[in-house]
């Protein structure tokens, strides 16, 4: 069996159909002007031309998920006795994410460290991650706001991916990354692509060079003084409207909230995405909030991605440079600009460890 496959353009749909035989295949679909991941069905309009507005993160890490459901049950013999019945469902069906971008897949690596590679893995995330095959599509050109190369990624990066497609004339080169990914080379629509791999590599190289690198001179060395200076954030964030677009569209944001939603004796315990841009983030029951202003909350967002996470995970930056937070920000807040400003001109010597480790 060859190491590299080739998928002719006209067979893409057949290929997805084939995958859909024993898994739910999430594909980027065009809805109006919006690209969103949807479970594949024949009436969907596939869109591989540009990254989805929302990353596929919710497929493995849902925006809102039921951890368990509960119901208060009365003892039929003694109505004074009541028990609580719990139901947990952590089963995850076989799933394929098709057409995610390398930055999207890289987001999963950031989550894996938090939810899987620990002493207490999260069963819900773990099960879904294990049962999901990630087939990415490398980017041929950058999109507004993209800066993956600045944070150690690449338009053809393979972190978090099981197999990667790269567009060449007439079709796609299929490069398996993991054992799981190799299996798709067996699908009947996939031809041998070994001879054309270099075309793909050329395209990848070209794309890599076209991506803007805001940290061209190296990752800024964040100044602790600036980082802790309120005026810095007030200056940089006056325009921020504290919405959750940046966090909810971010492939690497994973803060969550847990709430019980019940109506009349039964309900569910829900885990849902939180966003550090919201006032309710870290709002305490006493009504005290350690981060009462948007400045403090945005500091948390930058800190989490560029300071705290790297401190905890051997320098890995919790940002994949997909550019969505810049692209979709109502007031065009540019996180790369803020990180640069935080550097105050000082640069780190080397590329981020997160990517270096895997190279």
């Amino acid at each position, binding site marked *: 069996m060859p190491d590299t496959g080739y998928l002719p353009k006209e067979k893409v749909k057949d290929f997805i159909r084939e995958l859909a035989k024993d898994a739910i295949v999430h594909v980027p679909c065009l809805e109006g002007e919006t690209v969103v991941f949807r479970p594949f069905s024949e009436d969907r309009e596939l869109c591989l031309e540009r990254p989805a507005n929302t990353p596929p993160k919710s497929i493995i890490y849902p925006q809102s998920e039921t951890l368990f*459901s509960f119901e208060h049950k009365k003892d039929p013999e003694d109505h004074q006795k009541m028990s609580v019945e719990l139901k947990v469902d952590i089963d995850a069906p076989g799933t394929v994410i098709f057409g995610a971008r390398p930055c999207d897949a890289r987001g999963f690596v950031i989550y894996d460290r938090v939810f899987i590679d620990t002493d207490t893995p999260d069963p819900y995330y773990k099960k879904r991650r294990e049962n999901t095959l990630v087939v990415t599509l490398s980017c041929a050109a950058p999109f507004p706001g993209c800066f993956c190369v600045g944070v150690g990624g690449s338009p053809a990066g393979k972190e978090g991916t099981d197999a990667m497609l790269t567009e060449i004339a007439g079709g796609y080169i299929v490069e398996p990354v993991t054992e799981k990914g190799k299996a798709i080379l067996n699908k009947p629509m996939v031809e041998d692509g070994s001879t054309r791999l270099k075309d793909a590599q050329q395209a990848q190289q070209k794309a890599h060079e076209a991506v803007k690198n805001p940290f061209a001179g190296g990752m800024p060395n964040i100044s602790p003084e600036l980082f802790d200076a309120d005026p810095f954030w007030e200056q940089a964030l006056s325009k921020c409207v504290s919405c959750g677009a940046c966090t909810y569209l971010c492939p690497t944001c994973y803060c969550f909230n847990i709430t019980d939603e019940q*109506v009349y004796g*039964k*309900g*569910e315990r829900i885990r849902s995405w939180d966003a550090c841009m919201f006032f309710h983030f870290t709002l305490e029951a006493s009504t005290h909030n350690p981060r009462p202003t948007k400045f403090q909350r945005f500091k948390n967002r930058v800190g989490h991605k560029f300071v705290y996470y790297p401190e905890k995970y051997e320098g890995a930056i919790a940002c994949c440079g997909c550019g969505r937070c810049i692209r979709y920000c109502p007031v065009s807040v540019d996180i790369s600009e803020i990180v640069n400003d935080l550097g105050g001109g000082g640069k780190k010597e080397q590329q981020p460890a997160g990517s270096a480790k895997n190279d």
Partner: protein
Amino acid sequence: MSVVAEKELRVVGFLCNWCSYGGADTAGVARFKQPTDLRIIRVPCSGRVDPLFVVKALLTGADGVLVSGCHPRDCHYTDGNFYARRRLEMLKRLLPFIGIDERRFHYTWVSASEGQKWQQVVAGFTNRLHQLGPLHAKKENEG
């Protein structure tokens, strides 16, 4: 446990304490027979009825919502129903825009002495809803 399947629809009524709740009591005292679908929530004034209650009910399972207050000028709180009238009219005009039949929402004025009118309102609205049928597809294990 819920409304009796096939026979009843889910109808939520918000009644002001002073007029319409009293009107419903008057209808009861006079034994004016009515369909059984309606479930009544007592509020002090129709002005207390945030249109969002109507929306919430219609979105979460009600087949119809009825709001009834004192006749204009006869509000126990002087002006409450004047606000209600504007808000509820606005809602009535918005509902079809979002795809909910405006006939599923009715607002009216019934005084404490109008037992007969109350009977007509309940019967008329319930019949209308039965003609329209259920709003929601049958739910399985809705919680």
